[in-house]
């Protein structure tokens, strides 16, 4: 008979309608699957009791299912072309970009017409999506065997810095594995959820993720149940493996080995180094014995002090990155309420100690740092399939990059800022720039920068039939709407005639691979220059408007002015025309002010004239 789990009161399901949900941590090196049983989240083990599944896939032949995990990993050295590891690095990337990673990649990439790269294997050409799907399929099978039925839905985690293309590729891999992907969840967010931090109202959380080969720091802000990623940072080539390297080098130094030793010996030495590192979290010191060759066996002792001196420079590197991430997020160390530790290397006591010192608080380490991301994903999946009472909070999706439109002067007006939760709808009123303007182009852009040319163009459309009016009199309402699936529609409506035009855009597909990441980084690096550029453009636009209006007025009512007055206005006008071309926005502003001053009297006389005209032929009492 079926094995049952304890439900929340009133949440029991009918037989065959059990809602089975899992969370999957699809990692670069290892992957995990977790579920919630009887209210408790835990990762699921395979027959041998291993929770971690090495993210390695080996293709042997056409029509033969690939081998996934430990068995595949063992062949990484002997069959490198057919044994794919670290496929996560290729997700959502073009061949061009992958080649950019360097020549150390052993795989045969096939150049294809499409953007998706393919790897030549014994089982044919495989895309990174298919390779990821093979890993997901293995985890799915493990989960279904463990839960005794088909899965209702899954949540898969992705790095916070993954862009839309990488996320889409991950989702596609899930679909290919026959999974119902309820949602992708950011890895640091999942870690925070595992610790129940989503239950607190708000706060800033730092998630420090130090794995075997990669390091990531994410600064999150929790606000009304929504986790915003404020900044991310990291090093794709720094992790626990480097600790092992440092220890191995120390051993060689102690043993007086200077010549090159064989690959096999190095592997052996690294294993000893890794064991020593792990052992030192329990013990103060560890005795070592390494046989280099028949005549040279080295024995010695390593203690925590030595280990610390070896790894301190590496830990310091991560702390420098943390400091930069905090600066990017524009928060201080004191603002961080909680520090969450993720990744096997955070078991290292020195890492915890140094992090504790830096953040001035002990980091959270209660949950197994290898499992914490999968556990958070499982908790979220459990809520999403409906196993929890309704009041349980759902994490919401946010817009990764701001959406806006182009205004005069190549400037971007942001309508929906980045990190806004979707679905969302925002409207803003715009007006015409020129007298008698009857049409307007709405150019929709995405990005954080101030100038249109630095953002991504998503599309444009024109609104016609604006009634001819003086500049600034028309009211055009532009409405941005993003639905739950991230589909953006933009509508422009002229308020008096209700003339309307609109466009539908899917932002996810508008952006190519690394663009989101690059754009975000650029917006931070260029923030100052952007503001400067914006200020100049704004003043130039204002100058043009003033000059335009003044010339029309002079043409029409120039006779109201004495020659002397015309001269002084023209001097100010010339001056403004000149500084307008420069790049000093303050100078442009002062010149505009000067011109305004020079024309105050003119404006007053024009006003009087038009009032007189309006009143001409009327009796005063008509106006009472």
């Amino acid at each position, binding site marked *: *008979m*079926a*094995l*049952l*789990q*304890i*439900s*929340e*009161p*009133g*949440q*029991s399901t*009918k*037989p*065959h309608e059990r809602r089975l949900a899992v969370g999957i941590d699809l990692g670069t090196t290892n992957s995990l699957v977790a579920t919630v*049983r*009887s*209210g*408790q989240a835990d990762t*699921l*083990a*395979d*027959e041998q009791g291993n929770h971690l599944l090495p993210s390695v896939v080996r293709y042997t032949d056409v029509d033969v299912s690939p081998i996934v995990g430990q068995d595949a990993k063992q062949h990484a050295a002997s069959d490198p072309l057919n044994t794919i590891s670290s496929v996560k690095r290729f997700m959502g990337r073009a061949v061009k970009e992958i080649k950019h990673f360097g020549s150390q990649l052993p795989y045969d990439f096939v150049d294809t017409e499409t953007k998706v790269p393919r790897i030549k294997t014994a089982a044919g050409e495989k895309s990174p999506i298919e390779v990821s799907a093979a890993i997901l399929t293995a985890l799915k099978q*493990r989960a279904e*065997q*463990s*839960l*005794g039925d088909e899965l209702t839905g899954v949540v898969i985690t992705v790095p916070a810095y993954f862009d839309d293309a990488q996320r889409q590729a991950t989702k596609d891999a899930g679909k290919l594995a026959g999974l119902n992907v309820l949602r992708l969840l950011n890895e640091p967010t999942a870690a925070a959820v595992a610790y129940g931090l989503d239950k607190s109202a708000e706060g800033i959380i730092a998630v420090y993720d130090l794995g075997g080969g990669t390091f990531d720091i994410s600064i999150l802000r929790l606000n009304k149940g929504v986790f915003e990623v404020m900044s991310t940072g990291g090093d794709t080539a720094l992790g626990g493996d480097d600790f092992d390297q440092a220890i191995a080098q120390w051993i060689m130094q102690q043993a007086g080995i200077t010549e090159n030793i064989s690959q096999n010996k190095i592997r052996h030495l690294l294993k000893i180094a890794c064991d020593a590192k792990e052992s030192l979290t329990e013990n103060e010191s560890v005795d070592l014995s390494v046989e280099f060759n028949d005549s040279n066996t080295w024995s010695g002792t390593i203690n925590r002090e030595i280990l610390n001196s070896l790894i301190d420079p590496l830990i310091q590197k991560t702390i420098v990155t943390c400091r930069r991430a905090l600066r990017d997020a524009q928060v201080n160390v004191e603002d961080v309420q909680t520090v969450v530790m993720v990744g096997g290397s955070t078991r290292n006591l020195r890492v915890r100690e140094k992090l504790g010192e830096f953040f001035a608080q002990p980091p959270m380490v209660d949950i197994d740092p290898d499992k914490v991301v999968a556990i958070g994903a499982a908790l979220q999946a459990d809520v999403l399939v409906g196993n929890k009472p309704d009041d349980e909070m759902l994490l919401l999706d946010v817009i990764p990059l701001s959406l806006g439109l182009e205004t005069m002067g190549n400037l971007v007006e942001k309508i929906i800022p980045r990190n806004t939760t979707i679905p969302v709808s925002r409207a803003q009123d715009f007006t015409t720039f020129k007298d008698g303007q009857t049409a307007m182009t709405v150019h929709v852009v995405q990005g954080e920068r101030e100038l249109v040319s630095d953002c991504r163009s998503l599309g444009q459309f024109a609104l016609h039939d604006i009634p001819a009016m003086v500049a600034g009199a028309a009211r055009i309402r532009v409405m941005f709407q993003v639905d739950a699936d991230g589909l953006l529609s933009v509508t422009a409506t002229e308020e008096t005639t209700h003339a309307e035009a609109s466009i539908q855009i899917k932002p996810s597909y508008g952006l190519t691979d690394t663009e989101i990441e690059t754009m975000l980084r650029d917006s931070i690096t260029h923030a100052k220059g952007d503001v400067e550029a914006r200020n100049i453009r704004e003043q130039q636009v204002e100058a043009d408007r003033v000059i335009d209006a003044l010339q029309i007025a002079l043409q029409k009512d120039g006779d109201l002015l004495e020659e002397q007055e015309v001269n002084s206005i023209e001097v100010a006008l010339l001056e403004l025309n000149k500084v307008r071309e420069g790049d000093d926005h303050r100078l442009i502003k002062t010149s505009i002010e000067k011109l305004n001053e020079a024309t105050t009297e003119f404006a007053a006389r024009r006003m009087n004239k038009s009032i007189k005209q309006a009143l001409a032929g009327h009796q005063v009492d008509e106006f009472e």
Partner: protein
Amino acid sequence: MAISLTETAAGRVKEYLANRGSGEGLRLGVKTTGCSGMAYVIEFSDGADEGDEVFESQGVKIFVDAKSVVYLDGTELDYTKEGLNEGFKFKNPNEKDTCGCGESFTV
């Protein structure tokens, strides 16, 4: 009239209750549904409802509504592993037949 837990089952229930952070005990019951007519209910309990019978086994309180007691009398709840799968199992002497999947039963 008695409903009991095995030691393993009781250990699990205590662990899950501690993890949940609240709750008085376990609610067991049957409801009419499924392909063979009846299905087991196993839920956390935050206290007795009216008409509940309360049992205690291995230090765990078991709440059962009056109607279900008839079908569950003599039942022992166990916790077992079958391959990778694990969970609670009703050992119910009243159970005559189960459907193929074992999730529902007749008495």
